[in-house]
């Protein structure tokens, strides 16, 4: 191999890549990949950037034309105001509790059920799976009224006072219903891709189905679990209509509701909406960053890869 560096190699080196260790064509491919990804990220982040700069413009200057894409006098007053005026911390807390509990339930049940569907040919396997996924095909709009009546019905179990209406539990139950079928299905399909010989080895090693599943198969399904978790989390994080109907106060209302409260009858309070939107997105983004490692490793540790 030649040791002199072409400009491309220099570029590669300056990007922190090892020119020596890599196939030069792979390096080239990577540069293209970086380029494309960079472009994509810039494009999809433009609206977000726009929202962000809007949120740091003085409320009165938001609508100025020509639009300033680089605000000259950034301010945090919009953020301060929305926290002063609204219990944003409560909405955020609600969102986090609802979304993470839902995610937890969906991932737990979805994984075990999906595994059973993938591995065992029990009676009615296909029909049950179909009915699970089918359950999710019913347009949610058609379910609003029945859900409301279920959730606002007096409790079936004694000792609990009041209905589930306007509680996080109502939302968790509902969102679980919406996400669980998909969780099952995603995981079923995922497990289909994990070779069964590993299940067998686990059984030889003395694992019952439970042990084999939890100790061997589950760790290998991380990518699927990560995808399922993200899906369930974001769905719950974003859900609006049911949150609207099933909650009525900040003890259970979630961020999407909070954000849409900036949309008044007659006008949209863009500056505060933008700030609220950033805040609504922020926990999600932070959550993403915080679990970045997990998500990435989850999405990467394809156990099946050899």
């Amino acid at each position: 191999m030649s040791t002199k560096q072409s400009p491309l190699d220099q570029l590669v080196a300056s990007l922190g890549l090892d020119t020596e260790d890599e196939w030069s064509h792979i390096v080239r491919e990577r540069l293209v990949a970086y380029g494309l990804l960079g472009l994509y990220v810039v494009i999809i982040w433009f609206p977000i950037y726009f929202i962000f700069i809007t949120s740091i413009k003085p409320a009165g200057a938001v609508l100025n034309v020509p639009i300033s894409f680089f605000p000259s006098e950034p301010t945090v007053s919009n953020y301060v105001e929305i926290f002063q005026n609204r219990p944003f911390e409560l909405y955020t807390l609600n969102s986090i509790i609802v979304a993470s509990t839902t995610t937890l339930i969906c991932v737990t049940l979805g994984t075990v059920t999906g595994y059973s569907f993938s591995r065992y040919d029990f009676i009615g396997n296909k029909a049950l799976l179909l009915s699970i996924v089918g359950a999710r095909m019913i347009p949610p709009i058609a379910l609003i009224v029945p859900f409301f009546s279920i959730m606002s019905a007096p409790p079936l179990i004694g000792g609990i006072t009041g209905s589930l209406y306007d509680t996080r539990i109502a939302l968790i139950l509902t969102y679980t219903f919406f996400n669980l079928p998909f969780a099952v299905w995603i995981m079923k399909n995922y497990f289909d891709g994990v070779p069964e010989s590993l299940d067998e080895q686990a059984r030889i090693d003395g694992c019952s189905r439970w042990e084999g599943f939890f100790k061997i198969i589950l760790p290998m399904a991380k990518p699927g679990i990560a995808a399922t978790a993200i899906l369930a989390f974001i769905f719950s994080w974003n859900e609006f209509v049911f949150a609207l109907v099933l909650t009525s106060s900040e003890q259970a209302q979630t961020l999407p509701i909070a954000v849409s409260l900036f949309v008044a009858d007659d006008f949209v309070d863009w500056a505060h909406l933008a700030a609220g939107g950033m805040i609504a997105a922020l926990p999600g983004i932070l959550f993403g960053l915080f679990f970045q490692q997990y998500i990435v490793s989850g999405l990467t540790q394809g156990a099946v890869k050899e």
Partner: protein
Amino acid sequence: SGGDGGDGGDGSGNGSDGSGTSTGTGSESVAEKLVFYNAGSLKYDPGTEKNIERFEEETGITVEVNEVPWNNLKTSLTTIWKNESAKVDAFNGPTWWLADFVASDWIEPLGLGDSHMSNYPKNLQNLVTLDGKTYMAPEFGKWGTYLYDQQHFEKQGVSEPPSTWDEVVSTGQQLKTGDTSPFAFTWANKDVFTFKQFLYQAGGQLFNDSNEPVFVEGGTKVMDFFTRLRENDLIPDGISSMGEGGAGDTFIAGQLASVESWTPLAARAFEADGWSKERVGSAKPPKGPESRATFQDTNGISVSAFSERKGAAKKFAKFMTTTESSKTNMKVEGNPAVIPAVYDEPEIKEQYPSWLLEDMKFNLKHAKSETYLAQPQVDDYLSEQITPALLGDKDPQKALETAQSNIKRLYQDIGLL
């Protein structure tokens, strides 16, 4: 059934509230708490907030305010009522919901009494009264208003705002500049309201006394006006997407010389960057073939028929709409009062320029509305026709005729005709 439909403005009979008896108040000991559904965040309704505080102080009843996004308030309420749930005691909403709510037995007559009701102008009293019973206590007014950018007018050498449709067209030529359209009005989401406003100005109305849709003739005049505006490039291209927010935002962005929009816009403009009280010009809406009427979009407070605290709720509705409350609301939030007397209060006179009060009073008096059944669907039939007509994608007359026949068929279908 409740053949109430058209209550076309001035004409209809039942002058004052006859139903003095309120259901359910008698036996009920007044509750300590009530649940009030507010459209949107209370933060945007500081007047309401203030009045609630006063109410709580005076009565000792706690008001639990549930804020529901404006666009979804009706969905929330109907979901609750379809389940006959007592989750909500009182709510505030627009008058045009009333007919359907009453027909479905979802709201309760308020029994406000003549002394209270006589505070309001006749047309408003009629609007909230169905079958002789009052179902809503009008809280604050909203109606179309005409605002203009004085700075732009001056720059283009226009001294007076137009006072007729024709003048809108003629001064418009003068007001037009590169980035600025001479005129705009609220459309998206509010197309039917705006249409009605122009319709009233043109002397038309949607329904006659026997529930028949009769708007083609008046509507054609409106559409002619629109066509002139469009063809002379006096309204922006994006007009059909201009809701209240859009029209207001564009106005504040300095891209509109004048706008026919909803009242609170003026207050917003005052606060915006680069604006001042001096720059905001206000005038009575330009006169159409018939009048300078505007569309009445008053908000009021109603009480749920499923409420278990009707007594407290009715008390609340009444309290929130007294002259004092109306004044407070106007003072704190700038919401135009629906009680003419408020405009003569010294504090109000002090706070607002007299020309603005003048216009408000005028609008209050001349605002028109109709309550009709199956309102959302009627509006939808209208909307799907008038927007293409506005944009020139459809022949206006044909569009209106289609709308009219669709509405007629709907009314036949549901047994009104």
